[in-house]
């Protein structure tokens, strides 16, 4: 399952970042890493970005990026 398939309000754990190094470096530079448990807060319409909350910070991830983030279901930590 990737992040773009997750519904609003759900908690998920990032398991793996797929594809080009650029994206994972970019995510790491924002402090986002595999193992993070995040809550999907909002979805923008028309296949827009996904807003997730990590450690009290809200980060918008574009649809293309979300497709490259493998996730598994999780619960509130």
């Amino acid at each position, binding site marked *: 399952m990737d992040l773009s398939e997750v519904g609003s309000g759900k908690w998920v754990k990032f398991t793996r970042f797929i594809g*080009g190094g650029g994206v994972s470096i970019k995510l790491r530079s924002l402090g986002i*890493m*595999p193992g993070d448990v995040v809550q999907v807060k909002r979805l923008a319409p028309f*296949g827009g*970005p996904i*807003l997730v909350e990590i450690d009290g910070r809200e980060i*918008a*991830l574009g*649809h*293309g990026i979300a497709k490259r983030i493998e996730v598994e279901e999780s619960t509130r930590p």
Partner: protein
Amino acid sequence: MRFALIGQPNCGKSTLFNQVSGYKAETGNFSGTTVNYTESKVRVLGEVIELIDLPGTYTLAGSNPAERETIMYLSSHQVDLIINVVDASHLSQGLTLTLELLELQRPTVVVLNMMDEAARMGMTIDGPKLADILGTRVVPLVASKGRGVRNLFVTAQDVGRRGIVPKRQLYGRGIEEALQKLVSQINGRGDHFQAERTAFKLLEGEANSGQFEEKNDPVLASVIEECRSRIYDEYGQEAAWVLGAERRNIASDISSQIVQTGERRVSLRDRLDNVLLHPVWGYVFLILILLIFFQVIFKLGSAVEQPLLAIFDQLIAQVLIALASYPFIAEMVSGILQGIAGGVAIVLPYLLPFLLGLGFLEDVGYLPRVAFLMDALMHRIGLHGKAIVPFILGYGCNVPAVMSTRMLEDRRDRYLAAALATLVPCAARLAVVFGLVAFYLGPSLALAIYLFNLFVIALTGRIISSMLPEDTPGLILEMPVYRLPTVKNVFQKAWFRAREFTVEAWPILIVGSIILSLLNYFNLSVFLNALVLPVTWLLGLPSEVGVTLIFGILRKELSLIMLRQALNVSDFSQALTEIQMITFTVFVVFYVPCLATLAILKRELGRREMLTIAGLTVVIAIFAASFARIIAFILYTLTGS
């Protein structure tokens, strides 16, 4: 002494910097406002200190140019003290960078900024305990209100003088062993960074680990490889990720030790975002907010512009009379005055209110929300959500629009956004659309031209982005909390940006104006018309309009003003057919941005890119105008009028 301000994006470094240096760095509630470093000299207790504001970065292992700037600066300049600014309301996140900085083993002071916001969120922070854990001095600060600034610099000066080096945190055993091994391997070799720092970077696989060339050193390379693979075996992940995760675990552990969280109310942010990011209401409010924004600027601008220009017109008329016996000097002086008037007519009425309004929206934190809402749409034209800002700005004036492309990370995105933003009809082009099409042919046709413009921009975006090599990686953007901007900050920022325009673009405007006066004086308009003849001929326009197109490059609304003179009529319908009016207007909307915009394009992207964009706009303008001409012809033939 030299102090460097380092911190994560949007933690308030630049706000602090501006508090002590006067207004020199751009700030905004938008991560990554500072791209290059800014220096300023500050006097603290009788000593002059060089203060460096480095761009915000989440990690020293950053990937974008702004992030790399920080590590490059640290490795190439003598820095006596690092002032690490941390957003106290997001302490755990901020401390991950702090831990990385501690690895550098340099004198460091940790500043907990936005203490007021942390307090509002119900947090109490044990500063002394943090100081104890990190082995650095920890200072509280509210940079936006200037609270704690003096205390910070007194502390910083003390730490810098004594050269107190903090202790770094210890990581898991596997990592420490690998570090040891690498340190003993590289010890004794000359390097700007200490051996341990290099070891960290080698382990993380960074390209910029000092002047170290591991490729030329097979022994070292094999040790690195061994260390990395051992870590991979032990942790199941690459060393870079393991270190990142370790830092974060320690950071969140420290933060849970020193932060007491009180009752967190349902935040204002959630309630506001429920409306402003709503799939339906979000867009309704976006349109409403932008409508109000432009309405206010347009009303303000036109109220100021008319009387201002009237004063200049009168002045020019008087000069022409007073210097009537020296026609050459009179023409030159009026040229200079025209250039000054051009700047005044752009800057004061439109640019300033525009920048004030923008600064407000930016500091409140609304712009990232716009990026969120518009991301899907922007992808259709090969960009992502953040690039919406230049487009919004473009409707006011292309100059700030091009300047704002700086917030995009990739050069490809900056180039594309700037090229497309220059196609957005600014307020001056609006004057032409209204004065010609809306006035003579009705407002619905004017609206049609605007929609056609959007269509052409989208099409151009698709075509250009399909030609550019890589695809945009997509939006990764932090949504900041809403903050109430301070009046001082908004005004200073507007002033700072307006000054950029004044210095960069205005002189060029004046020089261009003088050149046009020269052409006018030597009666070279026939020559100018001949120059533009290919275009006017192609579009079926009278050759006399050629000169107005040249003048339009100086200031877009001059096209309309000059048209009267060139055609020698006061009622355009006597000299131009309806189809010609439409063709002319569409051409003016798209062709070469004004001189001021060209100057900014050159500065932001370079001369070649500026020329390419200018050439591109001419091609687009010819195609668009020809297309409009054909459609208009068909429509008018069908309706029989």
